[in-house]
């Protein structure tokens, strides 16, 4: 029960803050390190979107499964994937979460219920339906969560999955993380309906739109639909309206955005700032609580990058493991 004016206990508020702040620090550091040229491959940052991932993931258990997107670091961290393993993975080292075989776009840890970031947009939707189907046979009350962006919301995989989930009454939640852009194309250009609630209703399931920069709004709305799914009430769609601080990928010049857009959203719509205001104004948490966590996160991120940079590189033998070779 809550011991303050907010709907979460102090312990839970601290956990939520740690989740969001870890993601923010992780992403800010990746942004810096990527610019040095030492991080290989494609990287897409979740900074600015933390409240959505955290608000939902606060309700999940280890046995719940999520399928993520190309912008998956935040989902991984919030679902409990080891941060040091993730950084090593981004550097392509053998101590990485996937032993350097997945990279940023494919980090997965099934033991933690994380079915993978995904390089194919919308492809995680059927997979989350599969997790939800398995839950029905296992009867363990677990749910599947499919994260996808406003861009992927136009992919056939997603639209087919909405219908499949509805006709099979699956305990699955589709979370549309609407950050306004599919790469550079605006959501308003590419999606004909004004609200994803209309889409959900069209497929026979309830839908809710929330301010994805407001942790408490996401927490509340997702709590309701996740418990409904756990209790056999079937699938739902949750639209989180949110913003991304960085480009589609690292290196994106973002010429499609308004000239002062990023500056404005960082100033006025930063979900982490908003959370800190909400918890400190209500005296639910005080500054020293937050400072202590900041300090721990700073140490963790520094260690993670130091260790990853020194971690052993995979060898040629690793190339041929984890798959049958017959040729």
């Amino acid at each position, binding site marked *: 029960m809550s011991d303050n004016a907010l709907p979460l206990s102090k312990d839970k508020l601290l956990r939520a803050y740690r989740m969001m702040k870890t993601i923010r620090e992780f992403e800010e550091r990746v942004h810096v390190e990527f610019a040095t040229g030492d991080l290989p491959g494609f990287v897409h940052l979740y900074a600015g979107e933390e409240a959505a991932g955290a608000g939902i993931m606060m309700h999940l258990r280890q046995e719940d499964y999520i399928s993520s997107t190309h912008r998956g670091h935040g989902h991984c961290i919030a679902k409990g994937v080891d941060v040091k393993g993730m950084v090593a993975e981004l550097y392509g080292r053998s101590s990485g979460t996937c032993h350097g*075989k997945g990279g940023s776009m494919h980090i997965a840890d099934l033991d933690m219920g994380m079915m993978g970031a995904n390089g194919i947009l919308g492809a995680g939707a059927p*997979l989350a339906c*599969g*997790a939800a189907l398995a839950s029905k046979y*296992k009867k363990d009350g677990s749910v599947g969560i499919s994260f996808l962006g406003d861009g992927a919301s136009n992919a056939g995989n997603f639209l087919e999955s909405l219908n499949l989930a509805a006709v099979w009454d699956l305990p699955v939640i589709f979370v549309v993380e609407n950050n306004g852009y599919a790469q550079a194309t605006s959501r308003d250009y590419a999606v004909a309906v004004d609200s994803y609630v209309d889409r959900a209703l069209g497929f026979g399931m309830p839908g809710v739109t929330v301010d994805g920069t407001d942790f408490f709004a996401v927490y509340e709305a997702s709590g309701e639909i996740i418990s409904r799914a756990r209790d056999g009430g079937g699938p739902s769609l949750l639209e989180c309206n949110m913003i991304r601080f960085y480009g589609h990928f690292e290196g994106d010049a973002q010429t499609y955005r308004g000239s002062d857009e990023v500056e404005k959203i960082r100033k006025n719509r930063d979900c982490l700032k908003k959370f800190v205001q909400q918890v400190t104004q209500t005296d639910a948490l005080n500054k020293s609580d937050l400072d202590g966590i900041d300090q721990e996160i700073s140490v963790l991120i520094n260690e993670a990058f130091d260790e990853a940079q020194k971690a052993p590189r995979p060898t040629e033998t690793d190339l041929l493991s984890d*798959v049958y070779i017959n040729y």
Partner: protein
Amino acid sequence: MARNITIREAIREAFDQEMERDSTVILMGEDIVGGAGSPGEDDAWGGVMGIHKGLFGKYGKRMLDTPLSESAYIGAAIGAAACGMRPVAELMFIDFLGVCFDQIFNQAAKFRYMFGGKAETPVVIRTMYGAGISAASQHSQTLTPIFTHIPGIKVVCPSTPYDAKGLMIQSIRDNDPVIFCEHKNIYDFSGDVPTESYTIPFAEANILREGSDVTIVSYGLMVHRAVEAANQLAKDGIECEVIDLRTLSPIDMETVIESVENTGKLVVVDEANPRCSIASDISATVAQQAFNDLKAPIEMVTPPHTPVPFSPDLESFYLPSSEKIVKSVQKTLIN
């Protein structure tokens, strides 16, 4: 104890025995029960080929008719497999691969490797392939080489009821994704099948007929054309060794190479189009690994590089036949 049953019955028996043995085995596909939500019989069809007929009464909710959304349900089967189930999903015709291929080759095929060996995806995708019933270009293809090109998925193609049962049970128990290809003209073929459960390991080709003159390699329905050709040639004193590959990924090249070392001549019979096919792949491998043993150019018996035609006349020109195989064998024996 063995008795004579068809391939259709052999596959059904494999499902029955595995579903009885392992409660994580579930079946799904379009009309695999047939009649979900309709006013008539619950299991009106049992699949378009009647493979599942009779299982619904015993397994109920473990058999799922799906909406016509191949990408969603094949993907859901893959997702469920990653979460502890052993689903067998039916892709009614191999030609429908185009609408769900991403889930197979970018998702299922990649998980184990891409996630650093920490994922298992024990899903079987059963599918019907092949020409011969005037089903025309979009329902008659042999797309096996498209699957064998992809690392991480296994490709199985039985030719007899005995193999169909043993390979299906092996496929269900395998922890990698398996594409199980059934020729649409092979379901009524019959043969001896043991009543008990058994498995056939992957990458173990079957030598159906021994011979020291020419090696004929094939898989699926074409194995029967190869045997017909070999029987025909035997009347003229030409002894062919006929090898049924049984699995295309992984593939038993050792048996093929050993045979070629003995015969020095190779004919590969493949119902797939010839470019980048199983036939061209085997030919290349034999040329690389047994070049000095070859006493004649390798012959490939395949359709031409055209879509499958509709007209029964054109289709018979298109398909490999025992006559075409006989001619190719004879060609390897000139000089």
